[in-house]
């Protein structure tokens, strides 16, 4: 890119941003240039550490507050008043006039970006009063109009609510309403839908697109999700390690990526529909970046590991409820119906995916199986033995045979213990080995199996990247030769390229050790790649259960269809059909005595069960 096009709203030229550290300045963004045209959407894509978020902060000079420094380059912006401002050199007053007023920003976490002690109405009107100089009453009227505009129902009453009384999707709409309150010329959205469920994400993306059309706002969309990029962007900038590696119109990036990194990134993205026609999960070779070049690893392999003769684990009518409110006399008035009468089997060597959105009860099922909580009713049988009939020693033994991998590899390792200790802990706990030398050898062996090096055992968790930490968690889970691993959103927090590697590792381990997985996730694209069978949960009950191919190619339940339709697909020619996707997920909290209607299941094909949808039990 050379000179800025005359009509660009924002032109960033040779931008370099540094952060001082003890080991000298760290360059987060290096020599970056891009343009945003009025009314267009530019997506900045990259994985963690690529500098995409720093770029978005630098445009508003918010890096100043994070101790960052713009070392060189210019950020030319055309304000409403005419002329051109270089935001990289502008004074504090100029910046304040631009922030929020001309360029607005929305962040990833809608909960933390709203002040919990003020009502929604107060917070939106504050921004309006501040930037437009109107009276409080006028501002409140304007706030209501804005809430209507972002398609929030019942806006009048919403103004007096507090942030915690709203769902995540509603909060993000409020954030958008606030950002749009001054009719900015440019909106910067930093991963605005990453923390939301897919169906809610689809709705939010749709709202942003419609508002953009109506108001002619230009948008910079920061994301790691290639599916979201194709949904939103006109142009794309791909960043890798602080530098722009490729830029161009969205179609060109997706159809003919030139840089090896872009190719690797696109190859790693799980695509819904890529397994159509395949009865079994399959491993694919991966393209990984090594320095500036790419290398292909792994082999293509059909995952024919399942043995359907006898179930390893049987869950029968599992029910879990939590009492949350009582009267003064201790009578329960409200309960969370987290899991209601859920039944399924897992067979040796099989991967069963438990899919659902937040509040569906999928994690509660996993926790009940792992004995992290006591179910209210139902039975769990492992190798034919009922959990309830087991002795304390047998239950402890079960904690060896079943291992749990948590979502967040940052949080599930003790920060004060060396990695070697963490991996050895299950071995020590169950007294599998006592000889220190033997344990050390075993730890080294496990590290090797998950693709790490033996000397890593002497380091602390914070010295590793997210993907490496998840490998450590997997090594720990493998340490006492389990038969079943419960993976609770275990790859959701990882970058796509790392995610693909971890998924391959899990599948490879399954083949080598005949492991069974209960794969708990909300990500349909990953489910399609790894699972033999799929169970879809909605509001604590299973609405559809069957072989993966049947569920994905012939979904019968309306919720399964909606879930599949909401997944953004990294293909610029296929956009989400938004007609299907409306409404929020209802709350699983019910008054005592108000039992939810139980679904009746029918077998529509061999092994493919679907909940019967009656008028009363219909899901949106």
């Amino acid at each position, binding site marked *: 890119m050379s000179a800025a096009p005359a009509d660009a709203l924002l032109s960033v030229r040779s931008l370099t941003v540094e952060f001082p550290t003890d080991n000298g300045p760290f360059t987060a963004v290096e020599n970056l240039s891009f343009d945003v045209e009025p009314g267009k959407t530019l997506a900045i894509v990259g994985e963690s550490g690529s500098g995409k978020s720093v770029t978005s902060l630098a445009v508003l000079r918010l890096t100043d507050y994070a101790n960052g420094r713009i070392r060189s380059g210019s950020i030319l912006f055309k304000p409403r008043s005419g002329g051109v401002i270089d935001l990289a050199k502008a004074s504090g007053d100029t910046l304040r006039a631009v922030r929020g007023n001309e360029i607005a920003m929305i962040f990833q976490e809608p909960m933390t970006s709203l002040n919990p002690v003020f009502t929604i109405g107060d917070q939106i009107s504050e921004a309006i009063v501040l930037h437009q100089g109107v009276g409080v009453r006028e501002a409140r009227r304007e706030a209501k109009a804005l809430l209507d505009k972002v398609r929030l129902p019942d806006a009048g009453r919403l103004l007096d609510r507090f942030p915690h009384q709203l769902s995540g999707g509603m909060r993000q709409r409020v954030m958008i309403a606030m950002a749009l309150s001054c009719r900015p010329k440019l909106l910067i959205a930093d991963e605005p839908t990453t923390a939301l469920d897919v169906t809610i994400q689809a709705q939010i993306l749709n709202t942003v697109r419609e508002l953009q059309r109506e108001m002619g706002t230009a948008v910079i969309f920061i994301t790691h999700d290639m599916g979201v990029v194709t949904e939103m962007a006109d142009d794309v900038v791909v960043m890798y390690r602080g530098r722009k590696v490729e830029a161009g119109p969205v179609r060109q990036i997706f159809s003919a990526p030139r840089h090896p990194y872009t190719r690797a990134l696109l190859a790693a993205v799980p695509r819904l529909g890529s397994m159509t026609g395949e009865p079994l999960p399959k491993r694919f070779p991966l393209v990984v970046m090594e320095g500036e070049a790419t290398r292909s690893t792994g082999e293509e392999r059909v995952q024919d590991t399942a043995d359907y003769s006898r179930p390893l684990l049987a869950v029968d009518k599992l029910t879990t409820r939590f009492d949350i409110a009582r009267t003064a006399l201790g009578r329960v008035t409200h309960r969370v119906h987290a899991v209601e009468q859920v039944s399924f089997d897992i067979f040796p060597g099989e991967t069963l995916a438990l899919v659902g959105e937040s509040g569906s009860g999928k994690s509660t099922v996993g926790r009940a199986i792992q004995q992290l909580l006591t179910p209210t009713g139902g039975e769990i049988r492992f190798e034919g033995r009922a959990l309830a009939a087991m002795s304390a020693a047998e239950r402890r033994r079960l904690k060896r045979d079943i291992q749990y991998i*948590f979502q967040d590899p940052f949080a599930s390792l*003790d920060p004060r213990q060396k990695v070697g200790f963490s991996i050895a802990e*299950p071995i020590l*706990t169950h007294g599998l080995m006592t000889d220190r030398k033997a344990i050390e050898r075993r730890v080294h062996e496990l590290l090797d199996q998950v693709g790490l090096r033996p000397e890593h055992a002497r380091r602390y968790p*914070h010295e590793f990247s997210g*993907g490496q930490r998840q490998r450590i968690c997997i090594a720990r889970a493998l340490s006492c030769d389990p038969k079943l691993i419960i993976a609770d959103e275990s790859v959701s927090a990882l970058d796509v390229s790392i995610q693909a590697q971890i998924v391959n590792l899990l599948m490879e381990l399954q083949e080598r050790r005949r492991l069974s997985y209960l794969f708990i996730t909300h990500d349909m694209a990953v489910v399609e790649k790894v699972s033999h069978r799929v169970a879809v949960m909605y509001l604590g009950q299973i609405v559809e259960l069957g072989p993966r191919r049947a569920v994905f190619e012939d979904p019968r339940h309306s919720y399964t269809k909606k879930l599949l339709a909401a997944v953004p697909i990294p293909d610029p020619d296929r956009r989400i059909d938004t007609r299907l996707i409306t409404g929020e997920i209802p709350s699983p909290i019910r008054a005592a005595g108000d039992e939810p209607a139980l679904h009746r299941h029918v077998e529509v094909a061999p092994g493919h069960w679907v909940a019967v949808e009656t008028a009363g039990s219909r899901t949106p």
Partner: protein
Amino acid sequence: MSTVEIEAPGTVRIWLRRLRSLEFILGAVLTVAMIGLVLASGLIFPDGGDAMDLTARLTPPFQSWAHPLGTDPLGRDVLARVVVGGKISLTVGFLSVLGAVVVGTVMGLVAGYYRGVWDMILMRFADVQLALPFILLAITFTAILGADLWNLILFMIIAQWVQYARVMRASVLSLRDREFIQSARSFGVRDLRILLHHILPNAYGPVLILMTLNVANNILLESSLTFLGLGVDPMIPSWGGMLADGRSYLQTAWWVSVFPGLAIMLTVLGLNLLGDWLRDFLDPTSKA
């Protein structure tokens, strides 16, 4: 993305680099010097600082080699009394804090980790403890057990464990539902091991800070209680006691109270520096 590699320097080099911090050097020198002097006080001043030289009453400091830090109204050597007095002060300061930390930490761990009945009993107990006026408690205590050094320490432990228990409990509460604790539970680690290996190492930071602050507090507390006749025999020199004795001469003979005060200050400074350093030292994430 390729993996992030961190150079693993030699262990000895890391140690050396981390010991080179100013905090550690200053803290260690002050603390070691103070404790060393106090331990050796019997050898340096065999008379225990009690020798009176009435002809040299209220000698100002830095004037004679016989009394480098001057003398008090009874002609006793200030330097000798400061060094000897450290025995009582440091014993009270360290032992009372150590005892209270042990009791409070155990209580806080149990209350925070098990919640439920244990939490309720222990915390109500703590509330009662906090509600009782300190002086009233002290008077009752000495009335029953009599005033001596060990009773004083015991009393301070009883009065102060609550602080540590509450701080510890708050840390434990924020930790007990963290994922790494849950994951330890998920593979069957027993409670005691979870408490010792996972909770305690992540929770003691605030307790460490509170500890170093309370050592100073308790050195002064000993003097107030002694002054009220509720502490140690007032004839035995202690820093707090000297401070109290010297207050009426502050206008005319500042050295009588300033030097014991300086001793307290340097001890506390040393301990605080060491405490800060220790907290960072034990936290693996702060290692450069």
